[in-house]
């Protein structure tokens, strides 16, 4: 049986690297006595594959992994077993069976939404800043990826900029491309926000809101888009 899991990687775990997160999940699978499948060979490992890398320093509301099992189990049972043993801050939200032929998460996720939580700034002022941003012909920042000296234009890769008030803070939600036409990293978005006059000390939290499979104008979660 092959399953896809959607989970919360809470703020408590935001400093974990991708490898730390994967090790944490594997250990939870063992504690929960999930009938995971092992790979063949001299050094068998759990057939677990994580979705796109959650950057160190960010937490994730909706993250994903795929897992192969030796035998069939009910998704509800699995959620319950795992949630009993996972450390505080991590929670399996949804589980869905998927076909063995379906492509890996890394292949299908092509968009993500990042949320920047700001304090001591008015929504109206932010709307103003957004207007100014929209006027600019390009949104150029220095690449934070491997090619450090390259200047990147983020404009074609930023699909949506949404803002809303929440309590005494404001959340900027940016839905962006991960891959084609341009791979946008959260720290490049941060640089962009700083370049339009947002102050770093006003940003109190950054998290990944969602991972999407974008098909034309539709944003599907990896659980909805399974073919």
């Amino acid at each position, binding site marked *: 049986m092959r399953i896809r899991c959607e989970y919360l990687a809470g703020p408590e775990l935001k400093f974990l690297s991708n490898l730390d997160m994967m090790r944490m999940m594997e250990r939870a699978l*063992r504690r929960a006595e999930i009938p995971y499948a092992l790979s063949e060979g001299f050094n068998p490992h759990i057939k677990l594959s994580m979705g796109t890398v959650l950057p160190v320093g960010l937490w994730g509301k909706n993250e994903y992994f795929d897992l192969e099992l030796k035998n069939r189990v009910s998704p509800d049972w699995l959620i319950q077993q795992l949630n009993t043993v996972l450390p505080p801050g991590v929670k399996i939200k949804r589980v869905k069976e998927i076909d063995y032929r379906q492509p890996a998460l890394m292949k299908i996720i092509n968009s993500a939404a990042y949320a920047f939580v700001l304090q001591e700034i008015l929504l109206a002022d932010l709307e103003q800043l957004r207007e100014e941003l929209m006027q600019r012909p390009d949104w150029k920042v220095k690449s934070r990826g491997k090619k450090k000296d390259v200047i990147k234009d983020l404009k074609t890769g930023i699909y949506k900029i949404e803002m809303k008030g929440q309590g005494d803070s404001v959340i900027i939600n940016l839905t962006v491309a991960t891959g084609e036409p341009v791979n946008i990293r959260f720290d490049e978005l941060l640089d962009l926000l700083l370049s339009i006059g947002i102050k770093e000390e006003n940003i109190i939290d950054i998290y990944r809101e969602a991972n999407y499979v974008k098909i034309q104008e539709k944003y599907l979660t990896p659980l909805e888009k399974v073919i």
Partner: protein
Amino acid sequence: MKDKLFREILPLVSKPVRYTGNELNMISKSWTESQCRMVLAFPDVYEVGMSHMGSKILYGLVNEKTDHLLERSYAPWPDMEALLRRNKIPLYSLESYRSLAEFDVVGFSLQYELSITNCINMLDMAGIPIHSSDRGETDPMVIAGGPVVFNPEPFAEFFDAFLIGDGEEILPEYLDLCYAVRGLPRGDKLLAMAKIRGVYIPALYRAEYGEDGLFKSLMPLQEGVPDRIQKRVVTDFDQSYFPDRPIVPYMNVIHDRAILEVMRGCQRGCRFCHAGMVYRPVREKKVETLIRQAGAQIKSSGYEEISLSSLSTLDYTGIKSLVTQLVENYGPCGIGVSLPSLRVDAFSIDLANEVQKVRKTTLTLAPEAGTQKMRDIINKNITEEQLLEAVQAAFESGWNSLKLYFMFGLPYEEEEDLAGIIRMLKEVKAVGSRYARRAVEIKAGLANFVPKAHTPFQWHQQNSMEEFDIKKEYLIKARGKDRGIKLDFHNSSTSFMEGVLARGDRRLAPAIYKAWQYGCKFDSWTEYFQYDQWCKALEETNIDPGFYALRARGQEENFPWDFIDIGISREFLWQEYEMARQEKVTLDCRQDGCNDCGICVEFGINMEILEEQS
């Protein structure tokens, strides 16, 4: 504070997970409802400290079995230290994020002599006075335990108390007393503590030295203070506490696996080995106890590997039966078993084969010396034949990378002994070319021998840095162009300082303090060790380091550590030293009958050895 840490500081440091705590199985006890509040301070980074078995035992024991509380703190890496100091955040514990200064007891685990500078640095980062004499009524009791405190004297000025011997025996009793004497003046507390067996309160003693500069005696300053401190020993080792729910770190620490302590102590009697002398007698756990502990740990941790730990795991009587059962129970779920150290014989290789059905990475063996004469001197009772047999078995069963550990600068060492190391390496490689399926890689770890207190070589002079360096050159030259043999040396200046502290006395404290003021910390990390600063500190405090490290001692000389009673008589150690000079071996008393080292008689205990199992 935590909020500022998470938002402003941790995003800027390397490996922030070192400083967040909140790991699986962490225990957060109520601050107000706990009697005595202690923080276990480990004077090295998180990933080193989290690998230390003794800390895991004490953490579980105090938190689960007593009304006291035990939290953790590790030495922050210099990038984090700078940020904490700049932001005026004191060094804190990972459980409650409280400053170390808020605890009743700050306990350091001293695993290595040079970690003293990190202890001082950690105290300073929490604003705790560094010298015991400067601490007042509201300051914590600063204590230390671990292998280094079998000679506590060089560190005496910095600690209020030393706990000597097996921590699980003594720490709960110490904390009970701390709670009982709360409210008393500090001086009275110390006096009360001095009455617990195994607790050494340095402020209650005065050291005397002769005109020749030699140590004479350590005198108790008050009535009721013992003149000898007897180490504490766990007697019913099989039933002693061991954590079923170890903390599971998020980051990759050095030993990131479930641990079973199969045995404590070792009676092989290698004459250079400090641990082998101070942790006697041998005590073994029952196989069924270990199987149960493995089950509990795997269930609570989800670890992918179980490691069998002790000073000499292959000497554990039940080893075969234990390994077979563990492999049977856990192999099918992909959980492996690992043996940290292998004995040099074919049986060990067979057993290693059993547990390593998987990847055959590097196999590690420790012949320690290159000639039979030298191995007889250090009482490492293996022959070249046994080594070559073991090596052949390893190559035949698929290993093609071997690491061999040696020491040099050993007592009575001659050129031929150094040549012997290289000759042995070449022979091992030749066996490899004959029996291995691929090209073999031989690595040799060559450690500088540092004589330690409480061992038969405590009378012997250490090689000088120049001697070490000349010998190192010789070894490299003798190895020649053989690319398949890699030699890995230690830093000779680090070994020199280690040697000074290992057999030092109270007079070293000002130099240690000064070295810290000059920026010495993380001295066990090559990239941070500053020999020139240590030299400056020693010079300015008028200390001749050679007096401690490079001087041969007479049979009758009193040692600053003699008052620590490890259960082995000085006569036995001297006799062993004589035997070394005569190149005579002393066999393991488990097989060969009692050698009168004194431990069983003096402590009125017996070795705990399992019935021989087939």
